[in-house]
């Protein structure tokens, strides 16, 4: 089989690798190398120092500078992600580097401390950094495991379609409720007017909708007195079916929101902690040089 000409194209993402495996684990290797080198140098030089190793030694300064530089650069991912420039860059490569170099900070910054901790601004900066890294690790877990569930849950139904389906069901409920008496209409109104799809972040994350108005409406429907006429009975049967359909769509949409919340939940720690870390880091550096 002959094909005329090979493709010569602009830079193109041809290989199909996730961010963790990017470029044959290139950044994992770089980060590991960095850590191994730092640990090696630390234990070789620590023995020869006059005083116990700390951030104030030449090794401490070197590790500190590398770590501080890394922290600032890692935080820069937030900007990189949002600025779509024309040149060649791959956000996937950035994320890959962010993950592995971020993890390497556990080693680099710990060595930088010389294992000296205390109740001061310096240790606060260290603790905040560890918090950022821990929340980031949570993120890695989320990104590596949740996408499958996210997409398996929704199938080929889009968010818009879920909302449309709910709207459509509500419209049908209103239509069908026309011949009902006051009590019946109240049941439909309960479902149509009081059902809350999402709610706050915690509610979305736990997918706990115990007081769901649609469920309450279903229950109330069953407790209604027997219908007065055939027309009413027919309407009530139709309404029960619609409420069930609505319950199905609601649980699908809420599961979707739950997984989405899990996928972004860790960011609610990661991002604020990053800003706190940047502030503490600044204070740490300023105080070190002010009290030289």
């Amino acid at each position, binding site marked *: *089989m002959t094909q005329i*000409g090979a493709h*010569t194209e602009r830079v193109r993402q041809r290989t199909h690798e996730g961010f963790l495996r990017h470029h044959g684990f290139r950044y994992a290797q770089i980060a590991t190398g960095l850590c191994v080198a730092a640990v090696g140098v630390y234990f070789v030089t620590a023995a020869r120092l006059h005083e116990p190793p700390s951030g104030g030694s030449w090794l401490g300064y070197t590790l500190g500078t590398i770590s501080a530089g890394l922290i600032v650069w890692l935080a820069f991912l937030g900007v990189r992600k949002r600025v779509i420039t024309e040149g060649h860059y791959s956000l996937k490569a950035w994320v890959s580097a962010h993950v592995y170099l971020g993890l390497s900070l556990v080693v680099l910054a710990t060595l930088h401390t010389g294992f000296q901790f205390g109740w001061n601004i310096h240790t606060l900066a260290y603790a905040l950094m560890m918090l950022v890294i821990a929340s980031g690790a949570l993120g890695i877990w989320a990104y590596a495991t949740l*996408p499958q569930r996210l997409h398996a849950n929704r199938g080929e139904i889009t968010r818009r379609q879920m909302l449309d389906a709910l709207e459509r069901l509500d*419209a049908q409920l209103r239509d069908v409720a026309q011949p009902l008496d006051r009590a019946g209409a109240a049941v439909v109104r309960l479902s149509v007017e009081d059902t809350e799809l999402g709610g706050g972040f915690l509610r979305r994350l736990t997918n706990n909708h115990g007081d769901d108005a649609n469920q309450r409406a279903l229950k109330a429907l069953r407790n209604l007195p027997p219908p007065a006429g055939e027309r009413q009975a027919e309407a009530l049967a139709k309404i029960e079916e619609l409420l069930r359909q609505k319950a199905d769509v609601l649980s699908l949409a809420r599961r979707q929101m739950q997984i989405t919340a899990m*996928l972004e939940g860790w960011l609610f720690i990661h991002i604020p902690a990053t800003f706190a870390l940047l502030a503490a880091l600044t204070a740490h550096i300023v105080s070190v040089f002010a009290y030289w």
Partner: protein
Amino acid sequence: MAETYKIAIVGSGPAGMSAAAHAAKKGVSHVLLEKTDHLSDTIFRYQKGKHVMATPNVLVLRADCEFDAGKREKILEQWDADVKAAGVNVRFKAEVKAITGEQGAFTLDLGKGGTIQAENVILAIGTQGNPNLMRCEGASLPHVQYQLDDPGEYTDEHIFVIGSGDAGIENALGLAADAGQGNTVTILNRSADFARAKKANVDNLMAARDAGRMTVMTETTPSLVEEGWVTVDTPQGSSRYRCDRIIARMGASPPRKFVESCGVTFASEQPSAFPTLSPTFETTKPGIYVIGALAGYPLIKHCMNQGFDVVEFILGVTDLEPADEPLLKEKLKGLPGNRSVSEWLEFLRSNVEILNGLSPLQMREFLLDSEVRAYRAGEPCFIRNEQGSSLFGIASGSVKVEVDPANPNITVPIGQGSIFGEVGLISGRRRGATIRAAEPTICIEIPRMAALKLMAQVPEARDTVNRITTERQVLQIFKSGLTPEDIRDVLAGSEVMDVKPGQPIISEGDLSDDLYIIRSGSMIVEKDIGGKPVFMNYVPAGSYSGEMAMIERSPRVATVKAAIRSQVVKLPAEPFRALLARKPELAARMQAEMKARREINAFIEEQKEQFGGAVDMYSSVANFLIKQGIGEATDVLLIDESLCVGCDNCERACADSHDGLSRLNREAGTTFANIHVPTSCRHCEHPHCMSDCPPNAIRRGPDGEVFISDTCIGCGNCQRACPYGVIQMDKPPPKKPGLLSWMLFGVGPGPGQPDYEWRKKAAKAGGAESPKLAIKCDMCSGKSGGPACVRACPTGAAIRVSPDAFLSVARVDKVVARP
């Protein structure tokens, strides 16, 4: 007594109206016949407030009516005023049923409106045609209508919509949209499913049915219409329903039949052909003239200019300088030879073989679309692997083809009068070889659409292109120093075949032994392993298939069938075997390739035994992708759902690198296994969207991207033509505040496509009215980093691939056997 006019003009669109206005200005006795009760029905039927554009910008308007880009209402108002001011004699509701007689004494039959006598007739009826009419009894009752302008007009009625196309479905949905209107809507479909309509429309229809807002009756036809009632035939028998209104949307029949019945000949049998015209727009029937869209000029400015010109011609003016003269002058400026425009036209027409059959008028139009290029000796016309689908004709000089990419000194000459670039034209693939001018050379470069039009209009041109294409393609595919002499016998028995999607050209186990060249489209190779068809390979255009059985005289080892509508060339086995015997080099080459292929087959079979599940999976993934139209794609966006975190950064990146509008919808689209095909352009080999673009604004860029240039007039044809729903009509939002001010102060909508509310408010503040234009993926054309959607994916879920790279066996383990 019938009235007699010097000129009768049929159709009051831009062309007819302009002709009538000019006739009126000149004081010629005339009549303008319009079948509806208003001027310019096509534009009248545009949606309210539509912005009508005036392209091509460079063309000077020469007419007695004004026209400038603007809102539909403003333009129609202007024309009404112009027609009145010019003193045009208009007859509304005058539909011409037949034209008989000869020049000087034509009779126009207006049905109930009597007859009209005219010396000359101008047909300016456009291409919209007449709606197909209901044929059952009672179909002529007044409550049967073929158009729905405003669904909100009708309340509390029993309405039947007949027709299963998009128009019918949209009308039915519109009528049932507001329950408050109280309409009882029923849609009738003659067949069992809605195959002709867009999926989204059918989905909405089914949803409306399920919601009880309307009734859908399939396999049903109306049989009797009465006042207030309709009787329909269903599979269960016939029944009678209340019916206050029938809206019949059963398509339209093109006006060709009517035009031919007037004695006018068309250029060819093809549906896309136009009437044969003289340089003065006169048809083969003396005294009948055709202008406007029916003559092949869909743009308003062209139409109006032709209206002016044709009246001049009828009045005996022969030296009228065409309105496009300055355009052509500009186009031909700077070329060597110091020729005038008409000398150039004649020079090109007589020197390039495929243009010989064109009339000067066609030649003019042709040149407007094409480019004349002068090359110095050694200058490249195009480079190997460049993307291009235009055809070149050599008007003087000659070129040489570098057939061997490894050694540019091996060249094959092509001389004056011949053509080149035809393989790219037909297959839509990249250029197969570099071609340079051998001496100072003048070529005409004909874009694909113009070339296809030429082939449809002039049968000789089509035959020439086809003959040369087959010959060159065979030479190019088999290389090995073959010459046209060598393959003469092979070509003599060759046959060009059209293959429908799914139709096999080779069936496993058959004893046939012909060789096939895939000329356009693509094929998939399947082999029956353990009772199941297993996907073996994807064969793109420009390749061959079937050589194993030809060489070894053995039964076929696999089935080769079309992935999409394709064209193949069948080469008979016997002469080819004789050729192999004469050319050991070619035989060796084919043997080597066959060996490689056999290894692939063996590999798959072995895999199948060891990892049956993985191969089945790969096979079904490949089949899924082919079903999604990947077979005609050149570059498609896929999303790996095991990596996608749903952050929509791809959409945001797309919006931010393209005037603030995203051209892709990540969530929408279909999914199979882990592979999601989002709603995004695939850059088809032969793009459906290109097929009917009045200003020719859709083109193919250097990287293979199909893009819409800024000459778009917003007509929406491409959006309707795209089977994948990737084109949207929208206006770009105003500029957003910068990223920093959003991050720090929360000003503006932030990255990505701004929401509708923000856009509306910002557009209002901006003031200027901007038209809705067609918007689609341009693969980030001109951006060195490549497509932004892929670059901006944080997890590597989004990839852009070409099908031949993606559907190769090398992926058996990669696609599915990932942990």
